[in-house]
Structures are given as C-alpha cells and as structure tokens.
C-alpha cells in the first residue's frame, strides 16, 4: 500500500487532504477494473506480438516453417524502404492533418459557443461526419474525386483546377486522404473543445472583459490557458487515432498510387495479410510501441505530466 502513495508530489493545494485520509486513500479499487479489462485483453496480444517479431512467422502454418531469427525482422525493417516510407507518410499525415483539425475545431468552438436558435441542431449535425462509417466515407470520397462524374472533382475543375485523376497522382492522392480525414474528424475536436469551453466559468472571461482585454487577448490569455488540458488530451486522442487510420484510406486508395498513401497501418496490413509475414509485421508494431513510449516519456518530461495539467487547468 505504501508504494502507491509513495513520495507524494503534493504541489497542488488540497491534494494533501486526499492523500492522508485514512482508509480511503488508495486509488487501487478505482483502477483495478480498467486495468483488468485493458491489460487482460491487450497484454497477451502485445507479448505475443513481441514473441512473434523474433521469428520468421508466416501467417498461415501451411505457408512455411516458423523459425527463430532473433532481431532479424528488425534488421529487415531498418533496410526496408517501404517501411520508412510508410513511417514518414504517417508522420506527415499526423503533422498536416491534426493541426488543421485542431485549429478548425477550436475556432468553430469559439464561434458556436453561445446560445442561438437551432444551436443544438447545428452542433449535432456538425458531428455527423464523425459518425459516418469510415469505409463509406472512404468510398464516397473516392467517387467524389472521380474525373468524369465526381462531384468534388467537378467543383474543383469549375474553380479552375486542371482536370486530373486526383487519386492517381501521388501528391493529390495524399492530399485527398488528408482532406478526407480533416473533413471527418475536425468536428470531433470541435465537440471536445466546445464541451471544454462550456466548462469555463463566465467570471473568468468577464473579469478579462472588465480589464478591457480585447477579444484576441482574451482568447490567448484566458481561454487557451484554461482550456490547456482539453487541448492537450484532444491532441493526444487525435494522434492515437490517426496512427491507427486504416479502413477509409484502404477503401479510397488501397495505399496507392504506388506507395504514396501507404500509411503505417496500411503497410502493417499489407505485410501481415498480403505477404503473410506475421513476424515482420509484428516487428513493425513493436517498433511503433517503442516509438510511442519514447513519445510519451518526452511528453511527460516536457512538462506534460498530469501534475502539470492539473496545475494549469484546474488549480482551483
């Protein structure tokens, strides 16, 4: 029991109360159910993935022997241009799509964070793309971009774009994949931001108003700092989802033309189920796991630990 309380980093006021108080000072009962369900379901697959990543392991037992090759798969990966390509495409995807989604979502939340007639309906309608089945979304986009009868293609051409097969050029196909994701997922950011904004006490903003702060100053000096935990977690949630993006892209482009939209999970899928090389694909997963851990550690180091969040967001 001691180990859980440990050297309490009680920086926030009030924390001491919770830490010390007798029989109910332990978080364990609160954590156990989630721990069980997440770790029990995921720990075996992750251990298994690590195990398999050390083998040449055909997906089907009939496709060949399973032989131990140590770190051979990791060496293969490090020399595989397809793997690095998919990793860069994935990172590019995250770095381009997510900032756009965050900005759009935040601005829309600022804009719509007031009561107006039909507000509820507008917000619910805005969320529809998030609810749209990813495969259907991918298919719809694929057809909207068709050069002969695609509605979006026709619109772009009417706006002066040269007639082209959007999904057949590496750049435009990549852009289309990003556009599809932005279209589908910025309302998600909007919803979280909106819920976060609705939780900001009016006094805070009013106080700033009395101080004579301009709207822009208010946004930067009051709203963003208070919304900081929401912004950060939204960002994290978007990143983990973007890392797993699969079915919409698969339906839209199948990773093509060439390898130009073969994002990380599409490449994992191709190696595991197309080439049936489970070992190699598991090595990709473990590589990603290590990358994610490094990423998380950096976040914590860079003052994005929970304590920091609490101080910034809820030090009240």
């Amino acid at each position, binding site marked *: *029991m001691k*180990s*859980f309380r440990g050297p309490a980093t009680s920086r926030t006021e009030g924390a001491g109360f919770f830490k010390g108080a007798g029989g109910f000072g*332990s978080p*364990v009962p609160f954590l*156990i159910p989630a*721990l*069980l369900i997440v*770790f*029990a379901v995921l*720990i*075996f697959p992750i*251990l298994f993935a690590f195990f398999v990543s050390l083998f040449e392991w*055909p*997906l*089907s*037992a*009939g*496709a*060949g022997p399973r032989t131990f090759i140590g770190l051979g798969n990791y060496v293969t990966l490090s020399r595989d241009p397809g793997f690095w390509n998919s990793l860069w495409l994935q990172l590019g995807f995250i770095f381009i799509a997510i900032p756009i989604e965050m900005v759009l979502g935040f601005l829309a939340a600022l804009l719509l964070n007031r009561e107006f007639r039909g507000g509820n309906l507008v917000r619910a309608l805005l969320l529809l793309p998030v609810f749209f089945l990813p495969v259907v979304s991918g298919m719809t986009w694929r057809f909207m971009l*068709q*050069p*002969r*009868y695609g509605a979006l293609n026709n619109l772009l051409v009417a706006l002066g774009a040269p*007639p082209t*097969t959007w*999904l*057949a050029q590496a750049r435009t196909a990549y852009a289309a994949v990003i556009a599809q994701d932005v279209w589908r997922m910025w309302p998600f950011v909007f919803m979280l931001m909106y819920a976060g904004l609705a939780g900001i006490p009016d006094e805070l903003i009013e106080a700033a108003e009395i101080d004579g702060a301009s709207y822009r100053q208010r946004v930067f000096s009051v709203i963003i700092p208070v919304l900081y935990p929401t912004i950060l977690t939204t960002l994290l949630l978007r990143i983990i989802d973007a890392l797993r993006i699969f079915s919409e892209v698969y339906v839209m*482009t*199948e990773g*093509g*033309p*060439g*390898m130009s939209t073969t994002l990380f999970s599409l490449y994992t899928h*191709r190696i595991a*189920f*197309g*080439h*049936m090389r489970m070992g190699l694909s598991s090595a990709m997963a473990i590589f990603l796991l290590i990358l994610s851990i490094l990423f998380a550690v950096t976040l914590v180091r860079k003052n994005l630990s929970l304590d920091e969040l609490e101080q910034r967001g809820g030090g009240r």
Partner: protein
Amino acid sequence: MKKALVFFLLVAMTFTVFAGGQREAAPAAQPTREINVLLWDDPYPRALEAMLPEFEAATGIRVNIEMLQPPQVLTRTAIAVTDTATDYDVVGVDEGNVPVFASMLLPFDQWPEGQVYPRTDVTSVTEKMLDIGTWEGVQLGVPINGNLYVWMTRKDLIENADYNRRFRAEYGYDLKVPDTLQELLEMGTFFHENDIAYGFGPFHGGPAGVLCEAVYMWHSFGTSFIDVVDGTYKVVLDEDKAVEGMEFYKKLMAISPPGAETMAHVERQAAFAADPKGVFSMFIWPAQIPAYENPDTSLVSGKIAYSAPPAGPVGHGAVTGAWAIMIPKASRNQEAAAEFVYWWSSHEVAERLVQANTIPARTEVLTNPAFVAEKPHLPALADAMAVAISRPRFAEIGEVQDVIKLRWTEGVTGNRDPREAVRLIVRETNEILQRAGY
C-alpha cells in the same frame, strides 16, 4: 503489496488463457451434424445458400455459411485453419492461395464416402479448371466455379451501320467482336477518336487483378512470367516480349476513360454500364455479368456480345480466377463436410446454379442448349475455358503481386519506361524468390 497482487492477477489471467488454449487443442468432442463453411462473397455462394434447406432436409446436416470478401477469406483461413485445429469444416480457396494451405487440407481421395450423395466425379469438372484444386500432383478439393476472363463488346456499336461504314472506309474491314488485340486497338481507337465511346476499360484493382492483366498480356505476346524450372521457381519472362505486351497495354490505356489508372471493378462497371458514353470492349469476370445485364444497374443490358478474350500475336488466353472447395485435415466433421461438397458439385445443383446466373466449372452445363438460348455468355465461357491460363502459384505470390501492381502500373501509365519497369519486375521478383529459398 497491492502492486504484487495486481501483477499476480495479471499473470494468473494470462495463464488461464494459455491453459484454456491447451484444453481446446486436445481432440475430443462428439462429431456433430453441423458444419461451418467459409466462402467468398459473390452471387454464386449466395445462390447456393438459398438452396441449403433442401440439403439440410435430405441429410440432417446443418450448414452455417459465412461469406467474406476474397482477401478477407484468405486472412480468415490463414488464422482459423491450422494442422491441428480449424473453425471451418469446408473452406473456399482462391486458386492462387492453394499452395499456402495445401499441407493442411485433406486430399480428395481420403474424403469419406457420402451417405446421401455420391462422391464427385472429378472427370466431370472442366479439364482446364481441374488443375486449380490440385497441388503438387495431389487433388485436394473440387474446383467449383468457372471464373475466368471473358470479353464483353458493345453489340449496338458494332452493328451500327453508320459507324461500320466510317470504320470500313478507314481500316478496310467490318466492325465486329474483336478477335485479336490489334483489332481491339483499331476499333477502340476509332470509337475513341470519333468521340462515340471509350475504346477500352483497363483493370487496376487489387494486386491480384493487376497480375491477371499482366499475365494475360504477356501470354498473348508469347512469354510467361514464372515457371518451374529444374524443380524450382524461376522468372522466365522474356524481356522483349514482356515490353511489347506492356507497350501494347499502354496504347489501350490511351483510349480508356479518364481515371483509367485507378479503375477497379466498381469504376469499370460505372464506365461500361452506367456512363452514357460507355466503353467499347473489355474483360469481365463472369460472376459480374448479371450486374451488367440488369436494367436496374446497367444502361447496356441486352447490348453486350460475349466472347473469349482477343488473341495476341501468339494466341488466345483467358486468365482463370476460380475457387476450389476444400476440407481441412483438422475438421472433425469430415463426413458431413464431404457430403456437402458432393451435393454442391453435383450435376443437378450445377444446372440450377447456372439458371441462377452463376458459373459452375462444368462444361456440359455451360454448353447445354437449353440454357444457352437464355444466357448468351455461356458459350463464350466454354470457349474461354478451352484457352484458360493460370497465374503462377506459390506461397509468396502475395509479395510478387505487389511488385507487379506497382511496376506494371508505372509502365502502362507512362510514369516509367516500360523496359525499365519490366527489368524492375524481374529483379524484384527474383529477390523475393531467392529470399523464399527457391
């Protein structure tokens, strides 16, 4: 202490899981009269599913059919069927994947005799299709559908007197169903240049589809891709002939609709059957013919002539893409499973399946005059089966397909010099074969 407790719980749970796994693996269980069947999702298995009650009544065997998209059937089979355990008693195997599963399937001569239906007479299966269910000389299962390239040509275009007069004036012969690729190119160019219709509908669907197109063109120009040489797999592609085939396809691409580079089945269907401008001539998998002949989904129903694919300089060829039905060695219901396959592959069921717009792998049914009158594509299928060719088969075909898809597409879209593309295909395929130990 609680940390230790949590850890212990986790370990305990993981062990339970493993222990459970071992229990499951032990062979026991009463043989039940219920079988699970995994099939690909297209009108053929669906037509069969509609006939199931009759089989269940005759045999008392309950059949659960699960249908998935073809690539998903491969994935599912790979995970669900092993040497010692299987979740399915009957599996449909795409011809290209037979080598992957061969060692886990029950050879046909070991299948139990049927109690209600007689054992399938394999000689009744169309000869060229029989190879599909065979691996290394062993008959593993029953090839069940006659899926292979057939050609569709717009009858209304070639029968148009005005077009014919103009075409004749230019090329010196009458419009007709193209018998050679050269004729296809000339007629297609005529229709395309005069803005009547697009000349050709290429296929750039999944990797398996692109491999089909490449194999078809290469065969037509007199070379094959991979063959068994001295008991091992070798790339036997003749560079000049392969380049010729690719160059020719590139010419066909030039008379194709915009977006030809990304045309999969769905886009091809839209271009040929729904676009008012339409496409003059292209290949089709027979399973899709009903959609092209259905007025609800097609503007050209009743206006299509069917034939074997046009020939290249070397001769005709029709790429097969058929399925065989197999029984895993690990199945505990082999008797019931065999009974089901015997029923399915019988002459009587085949006749009814043909009437339900599907294509069994039986020549005598396809050429039955009673059906031909109603379904003009059937004789074309029989013609195509006479010149059937197969894609190379081995366990690593998935990787080779990806190479082909990438390089072939680059070559025929003008993003890479065709000769260079062919060289890359040869080199990269060789690398895969070498790594696989051939």
